[in-house]
């Protein structure tokens, strides 16, 4: 399935600023992230027409994968350049946890993977809320659950991840 142009434009606009933080690798310029999302989507979509719901769900998952892949390949820089080399994801969770330790995307990814073992549904909620930026209501619609359940799962997931990340080492 080809993504409709306006959808593409919209995604492009949303992703535009993202990789400014990681501009130093020329293979990953501003819109690269988005291209990858679309590419991964396209390979999944095959010929069947997917609903927007499925499309967003697929985007959220693709986004998480891509970001984690990038964070991994970026790790080299972070280790040698200490905290400044990849400003973007170093600050990502550090602001929110306020415990003096910076967490990066890979920490979150690992914790989220663990969470999906405990409760796959809450992990899915985090994917949609954090990696696709959906509201609680939109998350509920996408997952086919009630907004109340989505809110509950979100609260649980957030507490669980927070606990995991602030307690680790």
């Amino acid at each position, binding site marked *: 399935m080809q993504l409709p142009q306006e959808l593409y434009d919209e995604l492009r606009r949303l992703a535009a600023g993202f990789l400014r933080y990681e501009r130093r690798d020329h293979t990953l310029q501003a819109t690269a992230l988005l291209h990858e999302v679309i590419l991964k989507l396209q390979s999944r979509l095959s010929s069947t027409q997917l609903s927007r719901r499925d499309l967003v769900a697929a985007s959220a998952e693709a986004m998480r994968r891509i970001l984690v892949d990038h964070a991994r390949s970026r790790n*080299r820089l972070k280790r040698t*350049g200490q905290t400044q080399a990849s400003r973007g994801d170093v600050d990502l969770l550090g602001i929110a946890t306020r415990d003096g330790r910076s967490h990066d995307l890979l920490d979150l990814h690992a914790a989220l993977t663990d969470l999906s073992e405990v409760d796959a549904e809450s992990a899915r909620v985090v994917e949609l809320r954090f990696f696709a*930026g959906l509201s609680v209501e939109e998350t509920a619609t996408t997952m086919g659950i009630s907004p109340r359940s989505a809110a509950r799962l979100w609260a649980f997931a957030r507490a*669980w991840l927070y606990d995991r990340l602030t307690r680790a080492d």
Partner: protein
Amino acid sequence: MDTDPADRAAKLREVAAGDIKLERRLADLLRAFEASNTFLDHPILSLSPLLHEAVPMESVGETIDRFQLVTPIGSGSFSVVWLANQLAPMRREVALKIVKPGLDVRTIAQRFDTERDVLARLEHPNISRIYDAGIHRSGRPYFVMELVRGESITRFVSAHGLCPGDMASLMIDVCSAVSFAHARGLVHRDLKPANILVQFIDGKPTPKLIDFGIARILTPDRAGTHTLGVIPAGTPAYMSPEQATFGDVDARADVYSLGVVLLELLTGDAMSHDRSDRAIHAAMAAKSLGGDWAVVVQRAIAADSADRYATPEQFAADLQQIIGGGKPLARRRSSRSIRRIAVAFAAAILCGVIVWMLVSRGTSVVTTPSDIAWPVPVSMKQLWRIQPEGNAGWWSIEIDAEARRAFAVSSTRELLEIDINTGDVVRTIHAEVGGDMRLAVRVALSTDMQRLIMVDESPDRLDQRLLVFDRAGNLISRFNLAGATYAICPLDAGATKVAVSTLDGSRTYVAVYDVTSGRRIAMTPAWNSTFAPVYLVAHPDGNSLYTISPAGEIVRISASTGKVIATLGHADPSTAVLRLLDDHRFALTGHYGATIFDVTTQSPIIRLSSPHKTIGAMLDIDDTIQLSTVDHRITRYSVTTAAPIASLDLGGDLTQVEFPHHVPGTSSFLVASQDGSLRLMSPEANASDKRPVPLGQ
């Protein structure tokens, strides 16, 4: 959830029913629940627009609250502006700006609430008022503003043929409005001609700023809320370097934008994103208007905000001086210390030298004419394509045309040797070195094609090394490198010396190594930056190189001392591409074109412009220069006229094409794409290159 700790403890005990471990775990989670109420609140991106079938758009005649939409009068990337009728309590025409779908609506509404008072008090004759704001039924915020019936300052100035003095007067009014807002804690952050409207009021051209405070509401502060998904506020061409890189933005960011606007008025040329153009433009303006203009503009658009006018008033004061025939402060430097005077003096001399270079060589700079017809592109066909499994892009590509070989580092971190004729991967080079699995980082070929240089790193990415092979694949030399390598560049034909750009901690530098001994021969002083130079270009003398420093200076560096021999100008290190074309020319690619420099005189000799963002330049057969652009086209320009003579279209199914590599001596290009594929493409019309098109894998 119970808030009384005692109640809660009792409840927990009840739920856990004697399971101490469970009880403790629940207590932990509850604590985390309370502490985590803002955790992960700022998503990386918002894909919600994808979810909604068609977001209800506003339409003509629609009434939003007390306002009836009449006709759309403008559109930006974040919003659409409507002419609207206010129906109550009074009837008047207003401008209604409604945010496009996709922004974080809640945060915008909150920010508007906190700034409402400031905006309401922003009453200045040169600032359009913000009357009201609200939320459209689709959930998108809108702003109601005073309707300004003016033209953008650039259009006004050219339509009415204003002289430089009049332009300066307009800018002085603009500066006063901007200062007024600054005094109330508001930085505009998106000053550009489209936001400075000019109309005749009582026969006098009067500028009016629109959108004050809105850029700030639509986009978060650095210190506050943004995480990763933020698009910087503002318009790239007018944005200060610190704003573009998410640095700390203050009043001086607006000064910068005003400086660019003035430069645009003076030269009559729309500014491209390419900051390197600006120094040239400023110099051009100086040539026709007198040095003071250039000094003032250059002070306003200094890359480092510390070198800029601290406030718009200072900028205005200097403009006033010029109009009145006095010496601008930027020239007088009376308040500076001796040292600062010396530095400024040196800078002025340098500026003078650039101006002199342009003036004395002005006639020899060939520039793409503005009224040319762009050639109809010839479509390209794919000769082969490979796509290694798991590959998501290419880190580094080198071509040996004579041997019909390409060397490419994939994102899976393997160095592949590829047969250009067939697209077959002949071998994977990292597997043949040492016992451990190393990851490839960069590859380069010496100019005599006899040496293959590669940088690889350990799987934990903690140590890197440089390896040199002969073309039979024998390892000739191997030594460790410090830090993380960004670029490598053999300096002489046989690659006995290699320059490496390195990020080490929070410092970056370029070092030159003797390949045989692995000894570091020279090193530049370290730049305090985490952005190491991405392009290193060997000078044909074999003992120096060009690069763009993290500070944005195009410099020539001695390979024996590491010292800067010459500074050629400025370029944005995050977007400019430096390429050597041949023994006597190198190209600096900006956003919309390229400047070709002469290696001997180090001055620009050709300026090529292109209608699309340019991602690379290369020399082609018959002494033409090719620029490749983001719209997947390659355009050939004549060196003598700087006019485009032919264009190739790589086709639309490619995603995010990297710089296409011309295969010398053929009409083919090696095209790397972000989808992880590598393709050989050739013009459709070319019959000599017909070969079967095997699909890789």
